């Protein structure tokens, strides 16, 4: 087995539902302290090891905790319990165009997005031409990003995200970037990453994509891993249950 890339032990994340925390003056002054709020457990002691060179998929219903798990891995959310260790340089593409400012030029946003992702300015300057070339933006790079088509925007954002040259990529349904040819190109880039013993964690509802692209898949249900294993088997089990439940509801 390869070396681990991400090791999660007993990750638990609880949210208190919005309604109870709605921060109004009266409640803040009043009895907010000793009020029992109903807790929502987004992740319930999840143990997970993801290895280098692996494409790992996470599937499950809405609200099963998929995005929460990615955010814990991206270290934007500190778990209530448990530890998470990430070995390597992780790049997160949970959303595209993070750190971008729509008013500014593409050139400026390459800098902003790159700095936000953790690159230094000298590194961005060095990679600038290849970023623009990869994104197939051309001279539009000096136009404000708000004038870009959504395809151009996603291509530039994806290209900046890859400029970090991550060995761990956390993806949240952004595989469907740009047109058919760019999608093939981004797919090739990710395969390359895997070949370099990189790791991809991929959250998606597009089950055929998951089954095709991932090596192993975890099926999350109400914050608990219901099944972890070989991609196609897990996806199939998940699909079977969804189908059965739908049939049961109808019948």
């Amino acid at each position, binding site marked *: 087995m390869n070396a681990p890339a991400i090791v999660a032990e007993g990750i638990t994340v609880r949210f208190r539902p919005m309604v109870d925390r709605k*921060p109004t003056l009266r409640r803040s002054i009043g009895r907010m302290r000793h009020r029992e709020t109903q807790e929502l457990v987004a992740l319930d002691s999840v143990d997970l090891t993801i290895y280098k060179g692996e494409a790992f998929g996470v599937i499950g219903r809405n609200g099963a905790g998929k995005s929460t798990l990615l955010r814990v891995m991206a270290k934007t959310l500190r778990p209530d319990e448990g530890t998470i260790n990430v070995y390597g340089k992780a790049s997160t593409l949970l959303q595209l165009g993070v750190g971008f400012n729509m008013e*500014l030029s593409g050139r400026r946003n390459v800098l902003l997005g790159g700095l936000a992702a953790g690159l230094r300015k000298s590194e961005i300057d060095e990679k600038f031409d290849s970023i623009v070339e990869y994104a197939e933006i051309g001279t539009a790079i000096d136009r*404000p990003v708000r004038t870009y088509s959504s395809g151009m925007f996603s291509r530039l954002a994806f290209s900046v995200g890859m400029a970090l040259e991550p060995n761990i990529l956390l993806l949240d349904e952004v595989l469907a970037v740009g047109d058919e040819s760019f999608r093939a190109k981004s797919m090739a880039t990710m395969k390359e990453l895997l070949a370099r013993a990189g790791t991809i964690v991929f959250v998606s509802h597009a089950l055929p994509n998951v089954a095709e692209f991932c090596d192993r898949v975890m099926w999350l249900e109400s914050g608990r891993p219901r099944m972890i294993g070989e991609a196609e088997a897990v996806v199939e089990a998940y699909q079977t249950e969804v189908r059965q439940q739908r049939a049961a509801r109808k019948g």
Partner: protein
Amino acid sequence: MSNPLGTLRSYTPAAMTAVKTPPRRIFSAARTYISELWNRREFAWYLALGNLKARNASTTLGLLWWVINPLLLAGVYWLVFGLLFDRGTLDLSRGTETGLPFLAFLLSGMFPFFFTQSAMTGGVNSIVSNTKLLANLHFPRLILPIAALLESTVGFVASLGVFFMIVGPINGIWPGPWTLWLPVAMVIQLVFNFGLSTIVARVAVPFRDLNNLVPYFTRLWLYLSPVIYEAAFVEGKGETIEFLFRLNPLFSILELYRHALTGVDINLAGSLTISTLWAVGFAVAGVTLFVKYEGKMARYL
């Protein structure tokens, strides 16, 4: 890879584990945090620069607005207080032989006050308006209020340029030896503003209402600070009132600016001591409150 575990390097900061940090480690955690912050200094700077650029990106005059805004503001107050209320010269013979022209007096308090006001407004929004960054990327969150502070600092420096452009030709007040105190006053105010903006940034995350309250608070603060009146105004109001007024951190900071910008006499040692104490106090309190809360921020957004 013969021994893969030997080459592993954890990028996990100590704070990521839910386990409480023992006191001995707090010092090293602080060092890690500061070095992380320092590594990301370019991010803070270009974030501020980007926002500065974007704010007037679609206006015709563009960056000129950073100078025009304070100019117009000065014009409005000159019109209202200088002409309508006819307060041409204030009888402030302290230090200046002819008395201090009201416009110079007013602007020397107004522009520094607006620096703190814009730092506060920027601080309140620095976290809650950057939810996308917070949800997606891991970086020391202190970057965001710092970038907002850099933004308002640029605005303040531009307004200081306007100040000298106005009071020189119009009021005949040119920089003198007292101007050397200007950098000192600016550093003290910067530290104070930093503390203030981190506090409001942190509080605004669970308590969004703060955003709505800040305009009223700063309005009140303006009138409670010696901006449109001089410090001596409160001195005749009895000891208790004077004491309460002097509790205002901006009181001594604005006194420093009055001296540094116009040369009027003040109790320099007193103002320096009090304003420094406030500034350091706010900065320490702000950073402590903010950093302790960092890990929880994402779940409120």
